[in-house]
């Protein structure tokens, strides 16, 4: 039987190879078969979570609550100094100078990433805009959000800050951020099913020591960070509680 590794579908496409390398590292280190399952949409992955088809997951903050509290997943590590932040941007030529100037019926381009949607909607609240007050434009990815803004087909776009900062200069020059979140508390987390943890009891330690080996360090760099930080049960509970306050 092989275990199943899965990654929240909000990964940057450039990092997909990084996850394959990570999976190879995992199998070599533990001598266990691990299959890397790629989901390209959130509902597909959520279904797999519900059907108990995932053993190890790099979970987004939004799904972490269900994984920990309903599926008993154990949090292991999160990427060092990398929190999830969102940003609301408009086209450079757009008239709005701040969020408060946005009106009812405002066209909002977003991806299906639930954490970014949540943070984006919160940052629209000061303008008295809720889900029902905006016209949603669901986009496949952040490039398409940028295109919608530049072409004047959307008023504002919700971006993962990291994704915005990775847009090409040419694209970014035509956009203007109205507000950036600075939450610092919310992050992705590598979480494991207790059955798999029983087979790999030293996994957390091994993850923390990844940067000490060349193969480990290479794998991490491909994922866009230098090392993992350990995360404890209570720290994770706290993050889930904070996310919970933001859902309403």
């Amino acid at each position, binding site marked *: 039987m092989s275990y199943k590794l899965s990654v929240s579908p909000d990964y940057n496409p450039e990092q997909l190879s990084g996850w394959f390398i990570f999976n190879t590292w995992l199998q070599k280190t533990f001598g266990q078969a691990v299959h890397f399952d790629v989901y390209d949409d959130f509902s597909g992955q959520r279904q797999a979570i519900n059907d108990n088809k995932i053993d190890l997951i790099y979970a987004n903050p939004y799904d972490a609550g269900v994984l920990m509290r309903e599926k008993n997943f154990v949090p292991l590590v999160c990427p060092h100094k990398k929190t999830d932040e969102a940003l609301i941007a408009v086209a450079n030529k757009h008239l709005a100078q701040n969020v408060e100037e946005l009106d009812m019926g405002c066209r909002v381009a977003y991806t299906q990433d639930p954490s970014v949607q949540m943070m984006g909607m919160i940052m629209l609240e000061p303008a008295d805009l809720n889900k029902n007050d905006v016209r949603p434009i669901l986009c496949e990815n952040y490039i398409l959000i940028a295109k919608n803004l530049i072409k004047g087909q959307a008023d504002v776009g919700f971006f993962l800050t990291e994704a915005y900062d990775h847009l090409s200069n040419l694209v970014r020059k035509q956009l203007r951020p109205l507000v950036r979140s*600075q*939450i610092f508390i919310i992050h992705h987390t590598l979480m494991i099913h207790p059955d798999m943890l029983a087979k790999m009891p030293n996994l957390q330690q091994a993850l923390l020591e990844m940067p000490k080996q060349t193969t480990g360090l290479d794998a991490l760099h491909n994922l866009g960070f230098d090392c993992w930080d350990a995360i404890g049960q209570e720290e994770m509970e706290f993050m889930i509680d904070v996310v919970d*306050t933001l859902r309403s």
Partner: protein
Amino acid sequence: MKELKDMRPEDMRGDYQETVLTYADNRARRVLYTQEEIPYPEGRLIVSTTDVTGIITHVNQSFVDMSGFSTEELMDAPHYILRHPDMPPAAFKDLWDTIEQGKKWFGYVKNLRKDGAYYWVYATVIPNVRDGQIVSYTSVRRKPSRTKVHECETFYPTLF
């Protein structure tokens, strides 16, 4: 819990008024306040955790920055040191009634800073449930809508 200190004239920014607030635990304190509003910082969340009696056990940096108190002053202090005299007691009764039942509370709150100025927030308070027990409470505040704040500025005075 810490000794409850009166607010001090030397901490005030500009002209201030004075009143005495008596809190739910029957302790009283001299409170000084000005008419200066400090805008909510863009994109931030102001977070704190209390024990089950409302004593502060954790604050984040945005909390420290906005309240004007240091982390040392805040830790172990009752959360009511931020209570503004313009906030109706009924709002906080509703807060405590709700969270003690294990439910989420949200509302608009005018908070008092150490320097007497105030800031409005949209606050959510939730019980932190561990192994089926409420072990603490966490509040996360975000930037409120101006319209809602104006509504509260008219409505809250009618609740006294």
